[in-house]
């Protein structure tokens, strides 16, 4: 079933009555996603694209059996919504929302760590199990079914890499955007672990960028735990220091940490081939797999 999401997963859309929520619900349904309910406090009883809307997550779970939720909730409301969703027993939460205060992100992450839940984001394009279902905003026509798992810190680059892979004869099993904030709910290693166990994934592509230490930590994790081949691409070779490159998390601090050089070195050290430019990813995958 690839990881975290498949065509049977009963999906809830939070913030379904907002502009982005409505449009994206249509796209997700068109892709075949099994959306069973929506939640917007105060809008219970309405319908969006034929999907019933409830006031609370607990209600959506009780009436429709929702088990995963995608957030189009405005930033100030996310902390409370996340607590409610975790308390209702939802096992997968995808937070698409951008610009959530990082202190709120830390609080949610600490709360989630005491529960059985996978929470991904914020500022994530979402997750797509190709050919089955998607939770998030990624454009469906960028993805082709196949056996490569993709983990990306950037939304648009996950599209770019996926369509380039497909062009080179390689489809994807599941593509996950971990989110572009400095603190994310789930770091790259936790997703590597899921792909390692997934029988539908033969190779994992990591799309990283300047800032933070996720790629360096991923390298340590790969060295200890991952047996499948991994290929990486790190963007931002020409990013100036101490400038936020659009993503809040994409910044090379003055202490020289978070540079593409340090990430590339850490990954190369543990045997991961690192592309310097997006189109090179296919060439590196070809060293391990035959195209379809």
């Amino acid at each position, binding site marked *: 079933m690839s990881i975290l999401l498949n065509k049977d997963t009963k999906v809830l859309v939070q913030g379904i009555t907002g502009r982005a929520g409505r449009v*994206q619900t249509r796209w997700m349904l068109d892709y075949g996603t099994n959306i069973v309910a929506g939640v917007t406090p105060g809008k219970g009883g309405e319908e969006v694209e034929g999907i019933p809307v409830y006031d609370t997550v607990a209600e959506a779970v009780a009436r429709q059996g929702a088990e995963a939720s995608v957030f189009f909730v405005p930033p100030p409301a996310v902390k409370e919504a996340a607590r409610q969703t975790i308390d209702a027993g939802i096992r997968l939460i995808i937070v698409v929302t*951008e610009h959530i205060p990082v202190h709120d992100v830390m609080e949610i992450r600490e709360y989630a760590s005491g529960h059985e839940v996978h929470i991904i984001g914020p500022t994530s394009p979402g997750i797509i199990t190709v050919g089955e279902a998607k939770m998030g905003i990624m454009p469906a026509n960028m993805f082709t079914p196949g056996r490569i798992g993709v983990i990306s810190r*950037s939304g*648009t*680059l996950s599209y770019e890499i996926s*369509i380039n892979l497909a062009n080179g004869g390689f489809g994807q099993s599941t593509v996950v955007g971990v989110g*572009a904030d400095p*603190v994310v709910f789930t770091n790259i290693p936790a997703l590597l672990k899921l792909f390692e166990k997934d029988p539908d994934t033969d190779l994992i592509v990591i799309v990283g960028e300047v800032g933070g230490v996720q790629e360096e930590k991923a390298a340590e994790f790969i060295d200890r735990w991952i047996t499948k081949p991994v290929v990486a691409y790190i963007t931002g070779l*020409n990013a100036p220091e101490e400038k936020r490159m*659009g993503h809040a998390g994409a910044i090379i601090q003055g202490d020289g940490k978070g540079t593409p050089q340090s990430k590339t070195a850490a990954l190369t050290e543990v045997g991961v081939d690192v592309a310097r430019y997006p189109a090179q990813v296919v060439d590196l995958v070809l060293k391990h797999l035959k195209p379809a």
Partner: protein
Amino acid sequence: MRLYEFEGLELLRREAIPSPESALATSPEEAVEKAQDIGLPVVLKAQVLTGGRWLAGGVEIAESLDDVREASHRILGSSVRGLPVHRILVAQSVKAVREFYLGITIDDYHGTPLVILSAEGGVSINNIAREHAETVVSRPVSISKGLELSEAKQMCRQAGLKGKDATEVAGVLSSLYRVFRNYDALIAEINPLARTKEGTYLALDAKVEIDDSSLYRHTDLNLSMQDRIANPLERKGREIGVTYLELDGDIAIIASGAGLGMATMDIISQTMRPANFLETGGAITEDLLYKVTDLVLQKKGIRGLFINVYGGINPIHEGAKGIVRYMQEHNVTIPVVAKALGNHQEETWEIFRQNGVHVVTDVSTEKGIEQLASLLEEVR
């Protein structure tokens, strides 16, 4: 948003962390006036958003009023690390008997606040960590519980502080944590905290950065982003709601994603030189991309424009209309190449093609840049 020192010190005072008496001045005359009120000697400090002000000549001690006039004249007319100085802080000069480093930051990877303390303050924490690693103590804190006073005291003991130093510094550390938490800080740092010979503990500097995403709940601070960005084009980008960074080349970029924008920069840099980084964010409209096109073409000597957009959350066909409207109204004749994929891609291509924009049909950005490069060859 990085705060100026005087703003940071004000937040510290709100949590009862004292600092030497000080006042802002924008002219040498004003500086003299303030120095008279405060009493000599004073220290004059350029209010610019960068570290290392001492080394860059942005901080001077003045023993007499003539010194104050001269030094403030010098500092106010200067640039510190490329940033023009419009204001100086005139502060009582304090003799430190001992200096400490106190900082609260975020451990991004683990997603927790991180409290850092060193018995050796005064220089950058990176230098302290390199040269006096044994004096640096750090501790992750549960965001829901906060930093308890007992934890702060324990850190002080671990850092080798004794007696009054330990109790007083622990108190300041707890207060600093409250600043961090109450104002959604990414960094709250006192370097140094000084013990004076009178036995008081004073913050001699404050470095505070507040999370931009949290500003909606700190409107009472009246912080404006505009006077913090020195580059006029970058300021304009901020005004219209996009991220623009000026670079030193001549190929303009519009990208609908930060990762994509960086990748585009990297690819262009192989053979040409990017003029800017531009990321539209996820709220593209016709109007926004009209303004964005205006912004990226303002720099002198732009030879070509590369557009790289994906229709995920963004209605790229709407954006395309804004770009071509700008091009028509302003008679843009430089080569413009667009790679546009995702939802509404065919519609977007049509709009571009009908208006003289070269559409990349290949899915790779590399191929698109090659196309732009060959168009530029033809122009030559």
